[in-house]
C-alpha cells in the first residue's frame, strides 16, 4: 500500500512488453524521484490483472510480434490505460510500445491490427530491420540534450497530424522518414532502447516534470554523463 504522495509508476505487461530491459525505465524514474526525496513505487500490471486507471505514469516496453498482438488485445479489452490518459496521466512507449500506442500497425505476417489510438501513428513493416545506435535531436520544448539509444525494429512509423515527432534523426533510422518517435500531449513514444531513460536523464526528468507539474532540480550522475559522452562520441563512426 502506498499513500497519496507516492508517485505510482505502472509497468504495463512486463512479461510481454519487456524484451529489451524495459523495466529499467521504471527503475530509473523511481530512483530519480527517490534521490530528490519523493516516494515512488513501481506497479507491475500483468496479464490477468485489471489495468488500473489511477496510476501517475505508464511504461510500455518492447516485445516481439506475437507478444505485441497479445498486449494490444488485452489493453483494448481492459481500457484502464486509455482512461488514465484521458485524465492526464503520463505515458512512455518504447518500440513495440510505440506501435501499440498508435492507431494501427501491420506486422510481418501482413495482418493489420488496431492500436490504442493514443498517438496518431501508423506502423508498417519496412524492408530491412533497423539495428544499431540511434541519435536524435529533440523537438522544441522536448529538451536540449541529444537523445541516444539502440534501435532494433522492422516497423516504419508514419505520423498523422495529431502527433509530433519526439525528435529528428541525426544517426540511425528512427521512424524511417528522418523523424524519431511521437508525442501527443503527455503520451511519448520512441524507438530508443538502452533503456532510453538510463541514457537520457533529461527525457526522464521531462516526464517527471509533467507529472509533478514543475521542473525538477538537476541531478548530477557522473556515470550517466560518461556513458552519454561515450555513446554520443561514437555517433560519427560505426559501432
Amino acid at each position, binding site marked *: 500500500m502506498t499513500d497519496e504522495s507516492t508517485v505510482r509508476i505502472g509497468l504495463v505487461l512486463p*512479461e*510481454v512488453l*519487456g*524484451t*529489451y*530491459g*524495459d*523495466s*529499467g525505465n521504471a*527503475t*530509473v524514474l523511481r*530512483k530519480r524521484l527517490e534521490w530528490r526525496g519523493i516516494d515512488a513505487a513501481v506497479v507491475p500490471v500483468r*496479464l*490477468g490483472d485489471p489495468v488500473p486507471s489511477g496510476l501517475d505514469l505508464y511504461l510500455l516496453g518492447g516485445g*516481439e*510480434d*506475437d*507478444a505485441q*498482438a*497479445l498486449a494490444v488485445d488485452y489493453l483494448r479489452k481492459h481500457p484502464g490505460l486509455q482512461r488514465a490518459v484521458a485524465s492526464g496521466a503520463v505515458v512512455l512507449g518504447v518500440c513495440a510500445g510505440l506501435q501499440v500506442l498508435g492507431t494501427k500497425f501491420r506486422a510481418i505476417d501482413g495482418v493489420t491490427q488496431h492500436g490504442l489510438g493514443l498517438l496518431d501513428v501508423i506502423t508498417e513493416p519496412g524492408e530491412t*530491420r533497423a*539495428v*544499431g*545506435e540511434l541519435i536524435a535531436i529533440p523537438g522544441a520544448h522536448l529538451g536540449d540534450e541529444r537523445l541516444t539509444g*539502440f534501435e*532494433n525494429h522492422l516497423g516504419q512509423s508514419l505520423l498523422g497530424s495529431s502527433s509530433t515527432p519526439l525528435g529528428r534523426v541525426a544517426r540511425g533510422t528512427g521512424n524511417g522518414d528522418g523523424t524519431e518517435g511521437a508525442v501527443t500531449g503527455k503520451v511519448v513514444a520512441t524507438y530508443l*532502447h*538502452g*533503456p532510453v531513460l*538510463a*541514457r537520457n536523464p533529461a527525457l526522464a526528468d521531462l516526464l517527471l516534470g509533467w507529472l509533478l507539474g514543475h521542473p525538477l532540480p538537476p541531478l548530477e*550522475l557522473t*556515470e*550517466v554523463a*560518461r*556513458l552519454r559522452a*561515450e555513446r554520443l562520441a561514437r555517433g560519427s563512426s560505426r*559501432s
Partner: protein
Amino acid sequence: MHRTDVTIRSPLRSRASVAAGRLTAWLSRNAGFGSGGMIGGRVTLKLDPQALRRIGRDRALVLVTGTNGKTTTSLMLSRALEELGEVASNSDGANLPDGVLAALMARPTAPFAVLEVDEAYLPWVAEQVQPSAVVLLNLSRDQLDRVGEVRGTERELRAAMARLPNAIVVANCDDVLVTSAAMDAAHPIWVSTGRLWRDDSVSCPRCGHAVCHLMGQWSCTCGLKRPTPDWSLAGDLLSTPAGQVIDLDLRLPGDANRANAALALAAADNVGVPPDIAVKRLRTISDIGGRYRTIRRARHSVHLMLAKNPAGWAETLPVLVENTPVVIAVNGQEADGRDLSWLWDVPFEQLRGRHVVAAGERSADLAVRLRYADVSYQWERDPVRAIDLLAPGSVELVANYTAFRELVSRFDHDR
C-alpha cells in the same frame, strides 16, 4: 554405431580447399592472430561452400544448440562418447559454421562428432551435415541485436527439426520454446530439467495466446502443452526411460550444469553410451574452457565465471562466494551483442554491500546500471587492472563472452 573404417572420400576441390584452410589456420596461429581454427574454416568455406556437407558425412554427428549451456553440454557429451571412439568437437566454443568446419577438419577421421552450433546457424548446419541427433537446451533472449527475435529463431529451428526425418531430437520439455521447436521432429526425446527461464515464453509460440504454467506443467489453449518427459531430473537424481535412477554427483556446480548433464546423458544413451557409464565420464569434468576455473596470480586467486545474459546471471548470482569482491567485465562486441539493455534485467541490487568493480569495454553502461541499483563500485575498464585494485585474496570475476575469452587468453599468456 561404432565405426572405425571411415575414410573421407572428397572430391579434389574439397580436399584442396581443406588443405588451404589448414595452411591458413597454421599461418594464423603462428602469426599470433588467435583462434586459428576459425580462420582456417572460413577460408575453406569461401573456397568450397559444400565443404561442411562433405567433411561431416559418414560420421555419427550430434549438434548442440540453445541460448545457454552449449559449451558445457557439448563437452559433457563428447566426454561420454569418447567411450566409443575418437570425437571431433569445437570445444573452443567457436560455434559458427566456420568454427564447426574447423573442428571437423582438425579430426578428419573421428567417427563421432559433437558440435555446438549457434542457434541462428543450426538450421543451415543441420541441413549440411544431416546429424544423427540434435540437442535443444533452451531458448531465451540473447544478443538482442544479432539474433533478432527469439520467436523467429524458434520458428526456424522448428522447420529445421521437421526436415530431419532420421535424427533424434533431445529437447528440454520444461522450456516452452524448445518444446515447440522439437514438437514436429520425427523422433523427439523429452527431458525434464526443471529449468525454466519463463520471461520469454509467456505468449505461446504457436498461437500467441498466454501460456498457462501450473505446478511444473504448462499448456496453451491451442493444444501445445508440456509432453510427458522420457527423462526427468529432480535435484541430483536423473530418472531414465529404463527406470534407472542415476545420482549425477558432478564436480561442476549449480542447477544449470545438472540440467546440461541430464540432456547430455539422454543424448549419449541414444548414440550408444548407457547413462551409468556416461555419468562416470561426466564426473571427470571440473572446468569448461576456463569457466569455473580458479586462476592463481601473485596476490589474488581469481574465480572465473561466464554470464552473458539475464538467464546466465540468474544462475551466477546465487553461486558468488560471500564476502568476496566481485569484478564484472562487460563488452559489447558483435559476439556479445551490441545492445546492452539486458543489463537492466539482471537483479544487480543483490550485490549491494559487496565490493564491486565495474570493468570491460562497456563498463560505462554497467556503471550506470550499478548506480541505479544503489551498488557502490569502483571503475576500472581493464579487468586485469581491476583485480589488481583489490586487496590480496580471493576474487569472483564474472564476464560476458568476449570479455571472458580475452581474460582466459591473457591469463594463459601470463603463465
